[in-house]
């Protein structure tokens, strides 16, 4: 596979140098090649959906295609994991609310005011990305134990926001940096206080970046595994990621239910991909490089 993939650089640079005169037929050839790459890359996703639709227990081997789709896997998954999915949903929504409430004002302050120490805050955000989750979990476990936050939804919302808040600050700040200062100044001249200018001018104008940050924050919290694993010890509060882990931890003889749960747990990612294309592009590039 690597040899196939290594070829394009040569052809690409050459093609580009000779100008944009490429025939339509040639173009569709690249589309076919791209679909081939996509098929390889997305095979595991296909396999997840395929396996989730196979009747369980009847055959040892999953057939290559779901010729006769069977939904017992989903029935089992919903039966056993509906509560966990609900828990994940509550935690993720809570994490979005908390992250945006904390990140948006901070991003505004960092983008607009020459606040003393703002450089330190930005530096801290960058450094925080380097701290391994296990280090945070190790310390939080003991603190949570003392505070009675183990096995609690607020505890997980707070911990899961550790992925979302720094990311949201960077994304929203990058967007606000590009907002014309004159808009806010105009509002301020008209007598609006900081809070009003922020609430009724800055936030509405930043809607897209708030949505981007919110979507990713949701996904981070929804995907969280480490905090769920370390900060819960009973079944009282159990996100679906931990549900899946427990499925595969034991000897698995019912892959269709596991895969059905995996499909259900993938829904936010798929929704994000299909419904929020432009926000994703903004998120990946905005958060990582800028």
């Amino acid at each position, binding site marked *: 596979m*690597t040899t196939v*993939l290594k070829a394009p*650089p*040569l*052809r690409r*640079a050459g*093609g*580009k*140098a*000779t*100008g944009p005169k490429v025939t339509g037929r040639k173009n569709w050839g*690249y589309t076919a090649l*791209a679909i081939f790459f996509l098929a390889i890359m997305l*095979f*595991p996703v296909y*396999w*997840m959906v395929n396996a989730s639709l196979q009747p369980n227990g009847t055959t*040892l081997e999953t057939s290559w295609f779901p010729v006769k789709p069977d939904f017992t896997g989903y029935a089992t998954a919903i039966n056993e994991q509906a509560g966990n999915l609900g828990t994940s949903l509550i935690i993720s929504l809570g994490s979005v609310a908390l992250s945006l409430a*904390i990140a948006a004002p901070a991003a505004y302050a960092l983008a607009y*005011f*020459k*606040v003393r*120490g*703002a*450089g*330190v805050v930005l*530096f801290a*955000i*960058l450094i925080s990305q*380097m*701290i391994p989750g296990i280090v945070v979990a*190790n*310390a939080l*476990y*003991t603190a949570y134990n003392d505070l009675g936050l183990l096995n609690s939804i607020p505890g997980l919302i707070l911990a899961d926001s550790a992925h979302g*808040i*720094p990311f949201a600050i960077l994304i929203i700040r990058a967007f606000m*940096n590009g907002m014309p200062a004159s808009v806010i100044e105009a509002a301020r001249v008209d007598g609006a206080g*900081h809070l009003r200018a922020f609430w009724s001018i800055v936030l509405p104008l930043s809607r897209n970046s708030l949505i981007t940050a919110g979507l990713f924050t949701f*996904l981070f919290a*929804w*995907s969280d*595994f*480490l905090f769920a694993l*370390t900060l819960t010890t009973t079944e009282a509060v159990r996100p679906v990621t931990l549900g*899946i*882990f427990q*499925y595969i931890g034991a000897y*698995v003889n019912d892959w269709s239910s*596991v895969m059905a749960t995996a499909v259900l747990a*993938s829904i936010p*990612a*798929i929704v994000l*991909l299909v419904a929020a294309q432009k926000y*994703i*592009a903004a998120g*990946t590039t905005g958060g*990582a*490089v*800028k």
Partner: protein
Amino acid sequence: MSLATDLPHSEGRASGEAAKTPGTGAEKPAPRRRSRQRRERLFQWLFLVPAVVYMTLFFGYPVVKNVVMSFQEYTTSTFFTGEAPWVGFTNYVTVLQSSLFSTSLINTALFTIGSILGQFVIGLALAIFFQRKFPLNGILRSLLLLPWLLPLIVSSAVWRWILDKDSGALNRFLGDLGIIDTGIPWLTSTSLALIAVVGVNIWIGIPFNLTILYGGLQEIPDELYEAGSLDGATGWKAFRNITWPMLRPVVSVVLVLGVVYTLKVLDIILGLTNGGPANSTQTIATQSYNLSFHEFKFGEGAALGNVLVIISLVFAVLYLRASRRAVDE
């Protein structure tokens, strides 16, 4: 990072970063407006306070607490008695001298280097491929993001089923092609498990590399290639002399971010192999998790976690330098 350069008054190490670019902005206030400005300043800080408090509690405190714990004998009984005797460097000595340390250090290195190499080379090749204009380019490219957006534990579960020895899709595919007779124990053989785990992590990382590198490629002006082609720089030559040098800042950011993220990977390994078989996929991160949450030796877990922090910090410094260069250019 760019904002830091606009803040001449920022304190601490960041100001060292910022000082290199002379500050702009921050006009000197007229004397009579000074007290008003002070009030403004206080107000502006209030916007930042929740974030500062949160970051302190969820990043600052854990790091400090972890350092403290690493010098204590912190066990399950600590939770009942509240006593965690000081033991100096005992935890570090125990952890670093354990036979498992060298295993997990080597595994961490192999896992990180293998993952990064695979993700980067394939990601770059795909990024360059998608530079071409062809129908459905945008849609196909964004569909490729899916592996990156799935929860890691979901990917682990799916791959665990694909790599299953007896009825996994990979072995069946290889069997149908006549390449193998009996199933390969991808995840249960001590010699193959690490390779399998690296392979899965490469799969997860390709979309991220593709997206960032594609963005970087888009910023290289077409004129450079046109000028290059006049000088006979096409194909491989154009890549070496134009694409690669222009892409360098983005490349360094991608690589360092990749290293830092890969060093702390836990979900994938726990989901696929749980560190086994016979510790053949145990990394520093998973071993730290085991010490704390399976053996309940929180002090030792903390000590090993700190070793990981130190390794990450080395790359963090590289990252900061790389990202500053990327912004400057």
